[in-house]
Protein backbone atom coordinates (compact mmCIF):
# COMPACT_ATOMS: atom_id res chain seq x y z
CA UNK A 1 0.00 0.00 0.00
CA UNK A 2 2.80 2.36 0.94
CA UNK A 3 4.45 1.50 -2.36
CA UNK A 4 1.37 2.61 -4.32
CA UNK A 5 1.35 5.99 -2.56
CA UNK A 6 5.07 6.45 -3.17
CA UNK A 7 4.60 5.65 -6.84
CA UNK A 8 1.78 8.15 -7.27
CA UNK A 9 3.82 10.86 -5.55
CA UNK A 10 6.76 10.12 -7.84
CA UNK A 11 4.59 10.33 -10.96
CA UNK A 12 3.04 13.54 -9.65
CA UNK A 13 6.38 15.28 -9.02
CA UNK A 14 7.61 14.03 -12.39
CA UNK A 15 4.61 15.62 -14.15
CA UNK A 16 5.28 18.99 -12.55
CA UNK A 17 9.00 18.67 -13.27
CA UNK A 18 8.36 17.88 -16.93
CA UNK A 19 5.98 20.86 -17.20
CA UNK A 20 8.75 23.11 -15.88
CA UNK A 21 11.51 21.66 -18.05
CA UNK A 22 9.58 21.69 -21.31
CA UNK A 23 8.25 25.20 -20.80
CA UNK A 24 11.77 26.28 -19.85
CA UNK A 25 13.18 24.91 -23.08
CA UNK A 26 10.47 26.53 -25.19
CA UNK A 27 11.20 29.92 -23.59
CA UNK A 28 14.95 29.41 -23.99
CA UNK A 29 14.34 29.07 -27.75
CA UNK A 30 13.60 32.83 -27.72
CA UNK A 31 17.15 33.56 -26.64
CA UNK A 32 18.54 36.24 -28.99
CA UNK A 33 15.26 36.30 -31.02
CA UNK A 34 12.85 38.18 -28.73
CA UNK A 35 11.32 41.45 -30.02
CA UNK A 36 13.22 43.62 -27.52
CA UNK A 37 16.39 43.16 -25.52
CA UNK A 38 14.42 43.50 -22.26
CA UNK A 39 12.12 40.68 -23.23
CA UNK A 40 14.93 38.52 -24.47
CA UNK A 41 16.32 38.80 -20.97
CA UNK A 42 12.92 38.39 -19.30
CA UNK A 43 12.00 35.21 -21.19
CA UNK A 44 15.38 33.60 -20.59
CA UNK A 45 15.29 34.59 -16.90
CA UNK A 46 11.91 32.89 -16.60
CA UNK A 47 13.34 29.88 -18.46
CA UNK A 48 16.19 29.71 -15.96
CA UNK A 49 13.81 29.83 -12.97
CA UNK A 50 11.77 27.01 -14.50
CA UNK A 51 14.91 24.97 -15.16
CA UNK A 52 15.93 25.34 -11.52
CA UNK A 53 12.47 24.29 -10.38
CA UNK A 54 12.61 21.25 -12.69
CA UNK A 55 16.00 20.21 -11.33
CA UNK A 56 14.82 20.28 -7.72
CA UNK A 57 11.71 18.29 -8.68
CA UNK A 58 13.70 15.65 -10.62
CA UNK A 59 15.95 15.20 -7.59
CA UNK A 60 12.86 14.64 -5.42
CA UNK A 61 11.32 12.30 -8.01
CA UNK A 62 14.48 10.16 -7.99
CA UNK A 63 14.15 9.77 -4.22
CA UNK A 64 10.45 8.94 -4.44
CA UNK A 65 10.67 6.44 -7.30
CA UNK A 66 13.75 4.87 -5.79
CA UNK A 67 15.62 4.69 -9.09
CA UNK A 68 18.37 7.09 -8.07
CA UNK A 69 18.31 8.62 -11.55
CA UNK A 70 20.14 11.90 -12.08
CA UNK A 71 18.56 15.12 -13.33
CA UNK A 72 20.31 14.50 -16.66
CA UNK A 73 18.81 11.00 -16.92
CA UNK A 74 15.32 12.46 -16.68
CA UNK A 75 15.95 15.38 -19.02
CA UNK A 76 18.14 13.83 -21.69
CA UNK A 77 17.74 10.07 -21.64
CA UNK A 78 13.98 9.61 -21.78
CA UNK A 79 12.07 9.33 -25.03
CA UNK A 80 9.01 11.30 -26.00
CA UNK A 81 6.53 8.73 -24.69
CA UNK A 82 8.15 8.81 -21.25
CA UNK A 83 7.57 12.54 -20.76
CA UNK A 84 4.42 13.29 -18.77
CA UNK A 85 4.15 17.07 -19.22
CA UNK A 86 0.84 18.59 -20.25
CA UNK A 87 0.38 19.46 -23.92
CA UNK A 88 0.09 23.20 -23.33
CA UNK A 89 3.73 23.69 -22.27
CA UNK A 90 5.09 21.96 -25.38
CA UNK A 91 3.13 24.06 -27.89
CA UNK A 92 5.43 25.88 -30.28
CA UNK A 93 6.44 29.46 -29.57
CA UNK A 94 4.69 30.90 -32.61
CA UNK A 95 4.75 34.68 -32.56
CA UNK A 96 5.35 36.73 -29.41
CA UNK A 97 1.58 36.83 -28.74
CA UNK A 98 1.39 33.03 -28.72
CA UNK A 99 4.28 32.79 -26.29
CA UNK A 100 2.69 35.40 -24.00
CA UNK A 101 -0.72 33.71 -24.01
CA UNK A 102 0.89 30.32 -23.31
CA UNK A 103 2.85 31.94 -20.50
CA UNK A 104 -0.26 33.54 -18.98
CA UNK A 105 -2.17 30.25 -19.06
CA UNK A 106 0.77 28.25 -17.67
CA UNK A 107 2.09 30.60 -15.01
CA UNK A 108 -1.39 31.27 -13.63
CA UNK A 109 -1.75 27.54 -13.02
CA UNK A 110 1.78 27.19 -11.68
CA UNK A 111 1.34 30.04 -9.22
CA UNK A 112 -1.87 28.55 -7.79
CA UNK A 113 -0.25 25.12 -7.73
CA UNK A 114 2.89 26.25 -5.89
CA UNK A 115 0.71 28.10 -3.40
CA UNK A 116 -1.26 24.92 -2.69
CA UNK A 117 1.89 22.78 -2.54
CA UNK A 118 3.51 24.94 0.15
CA UNK A 119 1.35 22.89 2.54
CA UNK A 120 2.14 19.53 0.91
CA UNK A 121 2.62 16.62 3.31
CA UNK A 122 5.89 15.98 1.45
CA UNK A 123 8.30 18.37 3.21
CA UNK A 124 10.74 18.52 0.30
CA UNK A 125 7.99 19.31 -2.21
CA UNK A 126 6.67 21.99 0.16
CA UNK A 127 10.16 23.55 0.34
CA UNK A 128 10.52 23.56 -3.46
CA UNK A 129 7.06 25.14 -3.75
CA UNK A 130 7.80 27.90 -1.21
CA UNK A 131 10.90 28.86 -3.17
CA UNK A 132 9.26 28.62 -6.59
CA UNK A 133 6.21 30.59 -5.47
CA UNK A 134 8.19 33.81 -5.25
CA UNK A 135 9.74 33.28 -8.69
CA UNK A 136 6.48 32.36 -10.40
CA UNK A 137 4.82 35.49 -9.02
CA UNK A 138 7.14 37.47 -11.34
CA UNK A 139 6.34 35.16 -14.26
CA UNK A 140 2.61 35.68 -13.95
CA UNK A 141 3.04 39.45 -13.54
CA UNK A 142 5.13 39.56 -16.71
CA UNK A 143 2.59 37.59 -18.75
CA UNK A 144 -0.31 39.59 -17.30
CA UNK A 145 1.31 42.94 -18.17
CA UNK A 146 1.96 41.87 -21.75
CA UNK A 147 -1.52 40.40 -22.20
CA UNK A 148 -3.06 43.71 -21.16
CA UNK A 149 -0.75 45.72 -23.40
CA UNK A 150 -1.14 43.54 -26.48
CA UNK A 151 -4.82 42.64 -26.05
CA UNK A 152 -5.89 46.22 -25.51
CA UNK A 153 -3.24 47.52 -27.90
CA UNK A 154 -3.29 48.00 -31.67
CA UNK A 155 -5.60 46.20 -34.08
CA UNK A 156 -2.66 44.05 -35.12
CA UNK A 157 -1.63 43.07 -31.58
CA UNK A 158 -5.26 42.40 -30.62
CA UNK A 159 -5.77 40.20 -33.66
CA UNK A 160 -2.63 38.20 -32.88
CA UNK A 161 -3.64 37.72 -29.23
CA UNK A 162 -7.06 36.46 -30.28
CA UNK A 163 -5.51 34.02 -32.71
CA UNK A 164 -3.10 32.79 -30.02
CA UNK A 165 -5.94 32.30 -27.55
CA UNK A 166 -7.94 30.34 -30.11
CA UNK A 167 -4.97 28.07 -30.79
CA UNK A 168 -4.00 27.42 -27.17
CA UNK A 169 -7.30 27.43 -25.29
CA UNK A 170 -8.26 23.80 -26.08
CA UNK A 171 -5.11 22.62 -24.30
CA UNK A 172 -6.10 24.24 -21.00
CA UNK A 173 -8.71 21.58 -20.17
CA UNK A 174 -5.97 19.03 -19.61
CA UNK A 175 -4.44 21.17 -16.85
CA UNK A 176 -7.26 20.21 -14.48
CA UNK A 177 -7.58 16.56 -15.40
CA UNK A 178 -8.29 14.15 -12.57
CA UNK A 179 -6.95 10.60 -12.68
CA UNK A 180 -5.71 7.90 -10.29
CA UNK A 181 -2.48 9.78 -9.67
CA UNK A 182 -4.09 13.11 -8.76
CA UNK A 183 -6.72 11.37 -6.60
CA UNK A 184 -4.03 9.43 -4.77
CA UNK A 185 -1.81 12.45 -4.07
CA UNK A 186 -4.79 14.52 -2.95
CA UNK A 187 -5.75 11.75 -0.50
CA UNK A 188 -2.21 11.50 0.87
CA UNK A 189 -1.86 15.28 1.13
CA UNK A 190 1.16 15.32 -1.20
CA UNK A 191 -0.56 16.98 -4.15
CA UNK A 192 -3.01 19.75 -4.98
CA UNK A 193 -6.66 19.13 -5.81
CA UNK A 194 -7.20 20.23 -9.46
CA UNK A 195 -10.69 21.61 -8.81
CA UNK A 196 -9.79 24.56 -6.51
CA UNK A 197 -6.84 25.23 -8.83
CA UNK A 198 -9.25 25.52 -11.75
CA UNK A 199 -11.42 28.02 -9.86
CA UNK A 200 -8.42 30.18 -8.98
CA UNK A 201 -7.00 29.92 -12.51
CA UNK A 202 -10.35 30.83 -14.03
CA UNK A 203 -10.70 33.90 -11.84
CA UNK A 204 -7.33 35.38 -12.78
CA UNK A 205 -7.40 34.46 -16.46
CA UNK A 206 -10.97 35.77 -16.91
CA UNK A 207 -10.16 39.06 -15.18
CA UNK A 208 -7.05 39.62 -17.29
CA UNK A 209 -8.74 38.69 -20.58
CA UNK A 210 -11.68 41.00 -19.79
CA UNK A 211 -9.40 43.90 -19.04
CA UNK A 212 -7.38 43.12 -22.17
CA UNK A 213 -10.63 43.23 -24.23
CA UNK A 214 -10.10 39.62 -25.24
CA UNK A 215 -12.88 37.05 -25.41
CA UNK A 216 -12.58 33.60 -23.88
CA UNK A 217 -12.87 31.12 -26.72
CA UNK A 218 -15.53 28.47 -26.55
CA UNK A 219 -15.45 25.14 -28.28
CA UNK A 220 -15.66 21.51 -27.35
CA UNK A 221 -12.29 20.17 -28.53
CA UNK A 222 -10.34 19.10 -25.45
CA UNK A 223 -7.08 17.42 -26.50
CA UNK A 224 -5.32 15.46 -23.75
CA UNK A 225 -2.87 12.62 -23.31
CA UNK A 226 0.31 14.39 -22.20
CA UNK A 227 0.12 12.86 -18.73
CA UNK A 228 0.12 9.42 -20.40
CA UNK A 229 3.02 10.21 -22.72
CA UNK A 230 0.95 11.04 -25.81
CA UNK A 231 2.28 14.30 -27.23
CA UNK A 232 1.69 16.71 -30.10
CA UNK A 233 3.85 16.66 -33.19
CA UNK A 234 6.15 19.56 -32.38
CA UNK A 235 7.31 18.00 -29.12
CA UNK A 236 9.45 15.30 -30.72
CA UNK A 237 11.39 17.90 -32.68
CA UNK A 238 11.93 19.95 -29.55
CA UNK A 239 13.24 16.94 -27.64
CA UNK A 240 15.54 15.96 -30.50
CA UNK A 241 17.11 19.40 -30.38
CA UNK A 242 17.25 19.49 -26.58
CA UNK A 243 18.77 16.01 -26.20
CA UNK A 244 21.03 15.95 -29.23
CA UNK A 245 24.26 17.03 -27.57
CA UNK A 246 23.92 14.82 -24.51
CA UNK A 247 23.06 11.75 -26.56
CA UNK A 248 25.71 12.31 -29.23
CA UNK A 249 28.47 12.77 -26.66
CA UNK A 250 27.54 10.55 -23.70
CA UNK A 251 28.94 11.82 -20.41
CA UNK A 252 29.93 15.18 -21.84
CA UNK A 253 30.43 17.96 -19.26
CA UNK A 254 31.12 21.67 -19.49
Amino acid at each position, binding site marked *: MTLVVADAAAVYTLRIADDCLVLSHRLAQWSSYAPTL*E*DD*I*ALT*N*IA*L*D*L*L*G*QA*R*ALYARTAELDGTGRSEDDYAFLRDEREFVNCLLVEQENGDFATTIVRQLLCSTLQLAQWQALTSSSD*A*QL*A*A*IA*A*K*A*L*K*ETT*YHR*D*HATDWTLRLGDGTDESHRRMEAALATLWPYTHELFENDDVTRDVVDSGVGADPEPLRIEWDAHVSRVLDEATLVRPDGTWQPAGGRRGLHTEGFGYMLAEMQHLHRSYPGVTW
Partner: protein
Amino acid sequence: MTSVDEIRRLAGEVPDPEMPAMTIEDLGILRDVRVDASGGVVVDITPTYSGCPAVEVICADVERSIRARGFRDVTVRVVLSPAWTTDWMTDQGRRKLREYGIAPPRARGADMHVVELAVTCPICDSPHTTEVSHFGSTQCQAVRTCAGCGDTFPHFKEH
Protein backbone atom coordinates in the same frame (compact mmCIF):
# COMPACT_ATOMS: atom_id res chain seq x y z
CA MET B 1 42.20 23.63 17.00
CA THR B 2 39.94 25.46 14.63
CA SER B 3 36.58 26.48 15.94
CA VAL B 4 33.28 26.40 14.10
CA ASP B 5 33.46 30.20 14.11
CA GLU B 6 36.66 30.15 12.11
CA ILE B 7 35.23 27.74 9.53
CA ARG B 8 32.17 29.94 9.35
CA ARG B 9 34.36 32.97 8.69
CA LEU B 10 36.28 31.08 5.97
CA ALA B 11 33.08 29.97 4.26
CA GLY B 12 31.49 33.40 4.64
CA GLU B 13 34.40 35.11 2.87
CA VAL B 14 33.83 33.20 -0.37
CA PRO B 15 32.85 35.74 -3.06
CA ASP B 16 29.79 35.54 -5.27
CA PRO B 17 31.17 34.66 -8.74
CA GLU B 18 28.74 37.04 -10.47
CA MET B 19 29.28 39.97 -8.08
CA PRO B 20 32.77 39.44 -6.65
CA ALA B 21 32.45 42.45 -4.34
CA MET B 22 29.84 40.50 -2.40
CA THR B 23 30.63 37.56 -0.14
CA ILE B 24 28.16 34.81 0.58
CA GLU B 25 27.95 36.13 4.14
CA ASP B 26 26.89 39.53 2.75
CA LEU B 27 24.23 37.85 0.60
CA GLY B 28 22.81 35.92 3.53
CA ILE B 29 22.97 32.56 1.77
CA LEU B 30 25.32 30.86 4.26
CA ARG B 31 22.74 29.03 6.33
CA ASP B 32 24.68 26.88 8.77
CA VAL B 33 28.16 25.57 9.60
CA ARG B 34 28.78 22.68 11.97
CA VAL B 35 31.39 20.07 12.84
CA ASP B 36 30.06 16.59 13.60
CA ALA B 37 31.39 14.16 16.22
CA SER B 38 33.91 12.59 13.82
CA GLY B 39 35.32 15.98 12.80
CA GLY B 40 33.45 16.27 9.49
CA VAL B 41 32.51 19.76 8.42
CA VAL B 42 28.98 20.33 7.09
CA VAL B 43 28.05 23.64 5.46
CA ASP B 44 24.50 24.52 4.39
CA ILE B 45 24.02 27.00 1.54
CA THR B 46 20.67 28.23 0.30
CA PRO B 47 20.20 29.36 -3.31
CA THR B 48 18.90 32.84 -4.07
CA TYR B 49 16.76 31.58 -7.01
CA SER B 50 15.99 27.94 -7.91
CA GLY B 51 17.98 28.04 -11.13
CA CYS B 52 20.82 30.29 -9.98
CA PRO B 53 23.89 29.03 -11.88
CA ALA B 54 26.23 30.54 -9.29
CA VAL B 55 25.22 28.02 -6.61
CA GLU B 56 27.36 25.17 -7.92
CA VAL B 57 30.40 27.41 -8.22
CA ILE B 58 29.84 28.77 -4.72
CA CYS B 59 29.53 25.28 -3.23
CA ALA B 60 32.78 24.19 -4.92
CA ASP B 61 34.56 27.36 -3.76
CA VAL B 62 33.40 26.91 -0.16
CA GLU B 63 34.55 23.31 -0.13
CA ARG B 64 37.94 24.24 -1.61
CA SER B 65 38.42 27.07 0.85
CA ILE B 66 37.76 24.85 3.88
CA ARG B 67 39.83 21.96 2.54
CA ALA B 68 42.74 24.35 2.04
CA ARG B 69 42.82 24.73 5.82
CA GLY B 70 43.43 21.02 6.24
CA PHE B 71 39.92 19.66 6.66
CA ARG B 72 39.53 16.43 4.70
CA ASP B 73 35.89 15.66 5.35
CA VAL B 74 33.84 18.58 3.99
CA THR B 75 30.23 18.40 2.82
CA VAL B 76 28.45 21.39 1.31
CA ARG B 77 24.70 20.93 1.13
CA VAL B 78 22.10 23.00 -0.71
CA VAL B 79 19.02 23.52 1.45
CA LEU B 80 15.84 25.12 0.13
CA SER B 81 13.80 25.70 3.27
CA PRO B 82 13.16 28.26 4.57
CA ALA B 83 13.35 30.05 1.22
CA TRP B 84 16.00 32.76 0.93
CA THR B 85 14.89 36.37 1.07
CA THR B 86 16.77 39.61 0.40
CA ASP B 87 15.90 40.58 3.99
CA TRP B 88 18.81 38.33 5.01
CA MET B 89 21.32 40.50 3.17
CA THR B 90 23.63 42.25 5.62
CA ASP B 91 23.92 46.05 5.89
CA GLN B 92 27.52 45.70 4.75
CA GLY B 93 26.28 43.73 1.73
CA ARG B 94 23.82 46.51 0.86
CA ARG B 95 26.59 49.13 1.08
CA LYS B 96 28.90 47.07 -1.13
CA LEU B 97 26.18 46.59 -3.74
CA ARG B 98 25.61 50.34 -3.98
CA GLU B 99 29.36 51.00 -4.32
CA TYR B 100 29.41 48.35 -7.04
CA GLY B 101 26.73 50.29 -8.95
CA ILE B 102 23.75 48.11 -8.04
CA ALA B 103 20.85 49.59 -6.07
CA PRO B 104 20.38 47.31 -3.05
CA PRO B 105 17.04 45.70 -2.13
CA ARG B 106 14.91 47.98 -0.01
CA ALA B 107 14.18 47.18 3.61
CA ARG B 108 10.88 45.53 4.37
CA GLY B 109 8.65 45.44 7.39
CA ALA B 110 7.33 42.34 9.13
CA ASP B 111 4.37 42.19 6.72
CA MET B 112 6.82 42.07 3.76
CA HIS B 113 5.82 45.50 2.49
CA VAL B 114 8.61 47.72 1.29
CA VAL B 115 9.21 50.44 3.85
CA GLU B 116 11.33 52.77 1.77
CA LEU B 117 9.40 53.79 -1.35
CA ALA B 118 12.06 55.10 -3.73
CA VAL B 119 14.86 53.05 -5.26
CA THR B 120 17.73 55.55 -5.21
CA CYS B 121 20.09 55.75 -8.16
CA PRO B 122 23.50 54.29 -7.16
CA ILE B 123 25.21 56.72 -9.54
CA CYS B 124 23.71 60.14 -8.62
CA ASP B 125 21.54 59.33 -5.56
CA SER B 126 18.38 60.69 -7.19
CA PRO B 127 15.19 59.07 -5.87
CA HIS B 128 13.46 59.66 -9.23
CA THR B 129 13.92 56.29 -10.86
CA THR B 130 11.57 53.95 -12.71
CA GLU B 131 11.67 50.29 -13.57
CA VAL B 132 12.46 49.53 -17.23
CA SER B 133 12.39 45.77 -16.91
CA HIS B 134 11.66 43.50 -14.01
CA PHE B 135 14.27 41.08 -15.34
CA GLY B 136 17.95 41.92 -15.63
CA SER B 137 21.37 40.45 -16.29
CA THR B 138 20.96 37.93 -13.46
CA GLN B 139 17.84 36.42 -11.91
CA CYS B 140 18.13 38.63 -8.83
CA GLN B 141 18.29 41.96 -10.69
CA ALA B 142 15.84 44.33 -12.36
CA VAL B 143 16.76 47.23 -14.67
CA ARG B 144 15.85 50.82 -13.76
CA THR B 145 16.44 54.20 -15.31
CA CYS B 146 17.18 57.45 -13.49
CA ALA B 147 15.53 60.79 -14.30
CA GLY B 148 18.35 62.59 -12.47
CA CYS B 149 21.38 61.46 -14.47
CA GLY B 150 19.61 59.70 -17.34
CA ASP B 151 21.58 56.51 -16.80
CA THR B 152 20.21 53.00 -16.38
CA PHE B 153 21.29 50.84 -13.49
CA PRO B 154 20.62 47.39 -12.03
CA HIS B 155 18.45 46.98 -8.95
CA PHE B 156 18.82 43.94 -6.72
CA LYS B 157 15.08 43.36 -6.45
CA GLU B 158 13.32 42.57 -3.21
CA HIS B 159 12.59 38.84 -3.09
